[in-house]
């Protein structure tokens, strides 16, 4: 039996995710869309916190909310006049998109419900990971060590830095 606070918390997060997700894709002002995305990402970070993955939640906030959304905002400001509104969608386009989304969600939902004997699983034990434990795993070469992907990502990031500079440079 979960604590009431936890359940309450869950509902707030789930509601925020659903509402802000929908708003993100329906608002006609692009800057607002980015802001709603930020809220979705915050809600996700809260979800991670609730599941005791504090480090992951922190990364989610730092990278997504602090980095990516800022990037979005910058590029929006670079490419749009303030207050500009997107054109209204044609109904055909909307229905096409909606049907695709609903069909996809329905298929996944059906799959979840029909095969999900694990759907009723609950959190049974404390899953918190000490931060120094995590650091060791990240730089370990053991069976559950992650040094190789860690290094690969570092190279990828370097490549992205160079690529971003080269692509965005004014010629």
């Amino acid at each position, binding site marked *: 039996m979960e604590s009431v606070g936890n359940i309450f918390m869950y509902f707030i997060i789930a509601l925020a995710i659903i509402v802000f997700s929908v708003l993100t894709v329906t608002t006609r002002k692009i800057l607002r869309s980015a802001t709603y995305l930020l809220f979705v990402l915050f809600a996700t970070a809260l979800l991670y916190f609730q599941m005791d*993955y504090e480090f992951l939640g922190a*990364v989610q906030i730092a990278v997504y909310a602090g980095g990516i959304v800022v990037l*979005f905002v910058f590029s929006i400001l670079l490419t749009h006049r303030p207050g500009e509104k997107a054109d209204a969608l044609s109904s055909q386009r909307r229905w096409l998109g909606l049907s695709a989304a609903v069909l996809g969600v329905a298929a996944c939902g059906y799959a979840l419900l029909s095969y999900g004997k694990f759907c009723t699983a609950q959190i049974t034990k404390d899953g918190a990971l000490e931060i120094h434990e995590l650091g060791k795993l990240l730089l370990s070469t053991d069976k559950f060590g992650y040094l190789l992907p860690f290094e690969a990502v570092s190279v990828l990031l370097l490549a992205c830095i160079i690529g971003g500079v080269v692509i965005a440079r004014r010629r």
Partner: protein
Amino acid sequence: MDLTLLMYLIPSLIMFGCGVYGFLTRKNMIAIMISLELMLNSIDINFVVFNRFLFPDQYEGMFFTLFAIAIAAAETAVALAIIINVFRAVKNVDINEITKLKF
């Protein structure tokens, strides 16, 4: 009332549906990128949730998400750089106007 796995997957699924819808209907390339981020985020949640509920002794899902976030950041940076470059060239970010790559 118990908080089950399914209860966490449903918001994630809806988030993914929103991402699909946005991706298919938006004309602005940056908005499309935002929808893409939504989808990616929902997948991240799935990884974490499965990890936490089914295999609490291991951390593969968590680490996978960690790396996915890093890669998503990189991908977004490059994509936005390209979009800005395209904007510089054609003064437009409308996906329907930029069809130079077709045959």
